[in-house]
C-alpha cells in the first residue's frame, strides 16, 4: 500500500537537513545505524538508561540479549498459551461428551457413552491446537502485527535493516525526545549515521487507495455468495432434480438386490437360481463329505454316516488341524478337554446364571453315541442354542473337528489298556 511516487525518490536523500521539503510534515523520529550487534545492544542500553521508552531496534537477525538491553519485560504470552491449552482440553472433552454421550448416545466397544480414557487422545489434540493458535495469534496481536506500513519506510537506510545494518529508531512522541540532543546521544553511543524521519505531509498519503476499498468490498460480497445459496436452498422448494456431478455413477443400469423390478411377472428384482443349473463350485455332489449322509439303494431317506468320508486322508496333520480349530471355535463353551467346562459356562455360572455346554466326552452321553455324520451336521448347522459353524469352518476342517472330538472321547476315557504294554509300569 505504498503509494510510490517516482518523483519522491529524489527527495528521499539520506540528508537529514532537507527540512524545507514540501512533502515532509512533522518529524516522526530519528534512525541511527550501528556497525555490529554488540554496538546496537550497548546503544539500546544507553537509550534505555536515558529514560526513553518509545524506541525500537531493527536488525537482520534476532540479536540475543536485546530484550534485556532495551528493558522489554517478559511477555505474558506463556500465560495466554496456558489458558488456551486448558480451554482446548475442556472444549475437546465437551465436544466428545456432547456428541457421543448427550446429543447422540452411541455405544462403542461396550464402553460407557462418556468414557474419559477414550477422550484423552482427542483432548490432547485440541489442547495442542488451541495452545498453538494462542501462541501464533497471540504473538501477532501482542506485536501488533500485521503492520504493512511504517514511517521509517520513507528512509532508504531502513531497508538495509533486513540486510546488513543494525538500526535503532527513537520516536519523536517520546517525552524525552529533542531532535538535537537525541541525535547527539545516539552519536555518542557509537552510531555511524543518524537520520531524521518526517511523516508524509501530502493529504493523499493519509488515505488508502481507492482500489483497496474496492478489493475489500468485492471480497466481502463474494464471500457471502455461498451462504446466500445455502440460505435460499433451505428456505425454498425446488422441482429441479439434484445436480449430479457423476451421473453415470449415481444412476447405474442394474437392479439392486431385494428391489422391485416391474419387467418380471412377480415384480421382483431377485431371480434366484435357474432350474437345472448349479453355481460354479457349488455342486457338492459327495453326500458323505458335504452333508454326512449315506444313501442306500431303494431307501428314500438318507441316514447319517457312521464312518469318515472315504476321500478323507486321516493322519496326524488332519488331527492337529482339528485340535487347532476345536481350540478356537469349540473350546470357549465345551472346554479344552470337551467336558463342557469352557470359559463361557464357567463365567456364567460364576455370575449365578445357568449355562450348560454339552459334555462331548461323556461315554454315556449323546455325542459319544452320535454317528459321525450327525456330529458333522451339528457342527455345520448347530443344535439348540449352539449356532451353526458352516460359515466359519470349511467342510474339511469340520471333518477334522469330528476326528478330534473322537480323539478327545478316546483320550478322556482312557484306561490302563490304552497304555502300551512296555510303558505300563511307569503309570501308577
Amino acid at each position: 500500500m505504498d503509494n510510490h511516487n517516482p518523483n519522491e525518490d529524489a527527495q528521499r536523500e539520506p540528508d537529514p537537513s532537507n527540512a524545507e521539503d514540501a512533502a515532509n510534515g512533522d518529524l516522526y523520529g530519528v534512525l541511527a545505524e550501528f556497525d555490529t550487534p554488540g554496538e546496537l545492544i550497548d546503544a539500546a542500553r544507553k537509550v534505555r538508561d536515558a529514560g526513553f521508552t518509545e524506541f525500537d531496534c531493527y536488525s537482520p537477525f534476532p540479536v540475543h540479549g536485546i530484550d534485556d538491553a532495551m528493558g522489554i519485560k517478559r511477555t505474558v504470552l506463556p500465560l495466554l498459551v496456558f489458558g488456551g491449552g486448558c480451554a482446548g482440553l475442556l472444549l475437546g472433552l465437551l465436544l466428545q461428551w456432547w456428541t457421543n454421550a448427550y446429543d447422540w448416545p452411541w455405544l462403542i466397544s461396550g464402553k460407557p457413552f462418556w468414557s474419559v480414557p477414550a477422550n484423552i487422545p482427542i483432548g490432547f489434540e485440541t489442547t495442542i491446537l488451541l495452545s498453538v493458535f494462542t501462541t501464533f495469534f497471540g504473538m501477532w496481536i501482542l506485536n501488533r502485527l500485521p503492520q504493512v506500513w511504517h514511517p521509517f519506510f520513507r528512509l532508504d537506510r531502513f531497508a538495509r535493516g533486513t540486510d546488513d545494518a543494525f538500526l535503532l529508531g527513537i520516536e519523536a512522541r517520546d517525552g524525552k525526545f529533542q531532535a538535537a540532543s537525541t541525535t547527539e546521544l545516539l552519536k555518542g553511543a557509537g552510531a555511524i549515521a543518524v537520520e531524521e524521519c518526517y511523516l508524509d505531509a501530502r493529504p493523499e498519503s493519509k488515505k488508502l487507495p481507492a482500489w483497496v476499498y474496492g478489493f475489500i468490498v468485492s471480497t466481502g460480497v463474494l464471500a457471502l455468495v455461498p451462504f446466500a445459496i445455502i440460505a435460499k436452498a433451505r428456505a425454498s422448494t425446488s422441482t429441479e432434480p439434484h445436480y449430479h456431478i457423476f451421473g453415470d455413477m449415481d444412476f447405474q443400469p442394474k437392479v439392486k438386490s431385494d428391489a422391485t423390478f416391474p419387467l418380471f411377472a412377480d415384480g421382483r428384482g431377485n431371480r434366484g437360481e435357474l432350474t437345472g443349473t448349479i453355481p460354479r463350485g457349488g455342486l457338492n455332489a459327495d453326500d458323505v463329505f458335504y452333508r454326512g449322509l449315506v444313501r442306500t439303494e431303494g431307501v428314500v431317506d438318507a441316514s447319517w454316516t457312521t464312518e469318515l468320508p472315504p476321500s478323507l486322508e486321516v493322519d496326524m496333520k488332519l488331527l492337529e488341524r482339528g485340535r487347532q480349530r476345536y481350540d478356537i471355535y469349540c473350546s470357549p463353551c465345551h472346554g479344552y478337554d470337551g467336558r463342557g467346562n469352557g470359559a463361557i459356562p464357567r463365567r456364567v455360572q460364576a455370575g449365578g446364571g445357568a449355562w450348560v455346554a454339552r459334555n462331548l466326552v461323556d461315554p454315556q452321553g449323546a455325542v459319544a453315541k452320535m454317528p459321525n455324520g450327525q456330529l458333522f451336521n451339528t457342527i455345520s448347522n448347530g443344535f439348540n442354542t449352539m449356532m451353526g459353524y458352516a460359515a466359519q469352518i470349511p467342510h474339511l476342517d469340520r471333518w477334522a473337528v469330528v476326528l478330534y472330538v473322537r480323539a478327545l472321547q478316546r483320550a478322556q476315557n482312557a484306561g490302563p489298556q490304552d497304555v502300551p504294554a512296555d510303558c505300563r509300569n511307569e503309570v501308577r
Partner: protein
Amino acid sequence: MSNAEKTLHPDEKFKAGKLSGAVTKTGAGLAAVGFVISLALGAGAGDHWKRFFYAYLTGWSFILSIAIGGLFFVMLHHLVKARWSTVVRRLAEVVASTFPIIFITGLGFVIPLVAGYGDLYYWAHHDAHNHEINHHLISKLGWWLNPSYFSVRYVLYFAIYFGMARYFVSKSRLQDETGDPELSTRLRVLSAPLMIVFAFTTVFISFDLLMSLAPKWYSTIFGVNFFGGANIAFFATLILLSLVVQRSGRLTRAITTEHYHDLGKWLFAWTFFWAYTAFSQFMLIWYANIPEETVFYQYRMFSEWQWVSIAVLVGHFAFPFVFLLSRWTKRILPSLTFFAVWQLVFHWVDLYWNVMPNLFWDKAHVTGHDGKVVELMAGPLMGNPSLHTVGFSPVDVTLWIAMIGVFLLSVGRALNGNLIPVKDPQLPSSLSFENY
C-alpha cells in the same frame, strides 16, 4: 551473551578431590545399613525370601534405570553435537560409569535364579512347566525365558552397556589430556549406530527383567515406557548431582541457572514422554479389553492398588507436569530441587507399581492320574480378586535405600579427576550458554 564466549574461570575448582571419598563413604554407609536391615527383615518374613527379592528387583531397577538414562544422555549429547550440556556431560559420564557395580549387585538375584530359586520369576518356577495349567507358556516362551539363557542375556546386556559407557567416558577423559577435537568427531560418528544398539538393549532388558515377571502378559511399548521413566530419574539425578558438586565449592561458575533451566526442561519433557507412553499402553489395552491383557490393569485399577495407581498418575505426571510448565519453577533452584527429588521418589513408586503386583501368585488345583488333587502355583495376574493387595513391607523401602547407597558408592568411585571436560571444543559456548 552468546557472542562473548567464555573460558573456564581461573579460580574455578574442577577437580573431584575429596568429594569422591565423601560420596563413596556416604553410599557405602547407606548400603551397609540398608542391606543389614533388609536381610534381617527378609530372614524374618518366612516367605522364602520372596518379598525380599521382589523389593530387591524394584530397588535395583531404580538405580539401573538412572545409569541407562546417563548413558543415553551422553550418547545423545554427541549424536546431536550439543553445546549447552558440555558443562554437565562429565557428571552424566560419571552416572554412566556405574554399570559394573550395578551388574555385580544384580547378581544378587541372578545367581539364586540360576541356582534354582523359582519364587521371583514365575517362568523359573517348577509349576510353570506343568502342561495342565500352562501349556502355552512352555511351548512358546520356554526357549527364551529360562534361567540359563536369561543369565547369558544378563551378561550380554551389561557387556553392551558397560562397553559403550567405557568407550565414551575414556575417550572424553583422553580429550582432557590431549585436547584433540578429532575425538569429539569420532564419538559423534559412532553414537548414531550405537544409539540403535542402545535402543534394542534397553527395550529387551526391560522385557526380561520387569515384564517377564508376568510371563503371560505383554505390551510392546513397555520398554519405551521404562526408557522414559529412566530418563526422568536420570535428569533428576543429574540436577541433584550438579547441586551437590556445586555445594562442595566445585564448578560454581561453570554451571549456571541457564544450565539448570535446560535440565529442568529435560525433566519436564521426559515426564510428559513417560506419561504419553504409559497412557498409550493403557488405552490400547483398555479399549481392546482382551482378558489376558486387561488383567494387568484390572489388578491395578480395582483393588487396593488403585490408590497406588492414582498416586503414580498424579504424583509422577499431573502435579510435576503442571508446575514444571512454568519457566520459574525450573530456574529457581529450590523448586527445581524439590521436583527432582519428587520425581525420583515417584519413579520408584512407578517401578513398585509395575513389579510388586506380580508378587501374589494364584494357585491351581490339578487332578493327577491317580485321582489325587495337587495344588500348583499358577503364577501372577490370574485375576483372583482375593490376591489384589498391596501388602507393603518395610523391606521394600530399606532395600531401595540400600540400592541408593550402592549407586552413590558407584558414583563416588567414578567421581575422580576433572568434573568438566576441560578441553572439549564446545566448552566455551556451553559456559556462555543462555536461554532466551
